[in-house]
């Protein structure tokens, strides 16, 4: 998965101590695992103070994939880095709200500006 590894690196940018990760439109398990591994590594290495997962281009997200993301958020939490899920699309939101999941421990933001604000707050 060399090509997807390159994709992931290019779609990850640290700005002012905030790591902005843009997830690709179509997620596969391999890609997702790679992202999780990369993000976790960057968080520990670079002393990042917040992570923003940009989901605005993701069109499909099933429950398992969502749980992987939640796991990533919780891992970051343990590492002391808050994580914001940003730009989830209406379709995915409508699907996830039907699922038996709790979302109280997650931070969602509608756009990048408010996501940045939430990290700075």
């Amino acid at each position, binding site marked *: 998965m060399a090509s997807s590894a390159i994709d992931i690196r290019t779609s990850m940018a640290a700005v002012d101590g905030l790591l902005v990760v843009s997830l690709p439109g179509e997620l596969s398990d391999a890609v997702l695992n790679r992202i999780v591994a990369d993000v976790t590594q960057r968080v520990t290495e670079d002393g990042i*103070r917040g992570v923003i997962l940009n989901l605005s281009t993701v069109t499909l997200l099933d429950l398992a994939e969502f749980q992987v993301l939640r796991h990533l958020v919780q891992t970051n939490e343990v590492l002391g880095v808050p994580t914001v*899920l940003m730009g989830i699309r209406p379709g*995915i939101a409508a699907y996830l709200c039907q699922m038996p999941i709790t979302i109280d421990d997650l931070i969602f933001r*509608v756009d990048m500006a408010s996501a940045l*604000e939430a990290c700075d707050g």
Partner: protein
Amino acid sequence: MTTTGKRTTAKTSTTKPASTKPTAAIDNDTAQALGTALDHSNAMIEFDLKGAVLRANANFLALMDYSEAELIGQHHSLFVDPKEARSAEYKQLWASLAKGVFLQGEFRYLAKGGREVWLEASYNPLLNSGGKPHKVILLASNITEAKNARANIDSTIAAIERSMAVIEFAPDGTIQRANPIFLQVMGYAEEEIVGQHHRLFVTKDEATSLTYKQFWTSLARGESQRGQFQRITKSGEPVWLEASYNPIFDASGQLVRVVKFAYDITAQFNQAVALMGEKSAELEAALEESQEAERVRLELDRTLQEMSTPVTPIWDEILLLPLVGIVDSTRTDDVMRKTLDRISQTSSKMFILDISGVPTVDTAVANQLIKITKATRIMGCETLVSGVSSSIAHTIVELGVDISELRTTATLKDAFSTCLAEMGVLDLQRGRIPSRSQQPTLHRQRTYR
């Protein structure tokens, strides 16, 4: 053979009386045996030269339903039509028999009660030792059935020829004959087409096609073909024939010709085509109409939906939906969809769902509201449910709905001020607009490091 009652002698042959003396070559025993054999296999009756019955054998009696006693002495005219019996020809018959003339052919006899019997028979005048005829022996076999069958077939064929177009081909497709109906349909005279090939009636393209070749090879193999065929008349007009091509075999199973029976169905065909055109035009009109109706209905639906779920931005990044009337699951689905879309479009951070116009809230609707709240939160937008009346509040509590996920206020005003406060536009405590840096943290007071 006709059935007019006239005796028919199709193959009448005559032999001079003096020249036939076969008995001369046969000895007595053989003659005896021959007589017995004939007696067994044929109907036999003997007349004198005037036509009076001398004797008849069992076969003849059975065939004609008479007993011998009834017949002896009767005249031959008993067996023929009275009209015929009076005719000159009939008299002529007996005159020539009396002269010793041999006669053979197919004869129409009447049995007892007038039943018609066809006989393949020969009148054999017997000569006495002086060479003079002294009696006549009739040797006959019954051919009534074959005769009737033949007549049946003949009239069937005649009926077909009268009503259908008929044409006959050699196995290779060369035209042998055609009946007037066929000629009339195709516009040819018979001499114009006899000897020509069938391809005269098809288009050039078809004549050279593989299908056409196969058509004749399968006919030559003895397979009949039927269907609706387009053929070309002499004047070049297309005609449609409902036709069958029937291979005809001789007694030894050899294919001798192909007979085609056809109906001209051009008129029906054209009518059907016209009708189909008409029908399809009608159908098209109906379809268009229904499509138009569907479009109007959809438009109406959309407008109604739009009206029933007017999700409106009332402030920067704040959406308001005043819900009025009965709320059911279809409606809440619609609310969810519309709201999420609007949040996505406007990047709104707060959403006020005002239910002051909703008369009752049951468990299902309450759960739907919770789901909407959850969905908007996943998108990053907080939902406030406002306008909860005291009765609805009671109901919700009584139903035991878990409202920990719901943020509710009594009035729209309360909800609006909460929103503004949370957006940092309004400082509720100090009643002034705070600066951006003093923005309060968002819902559930998460504190980051």
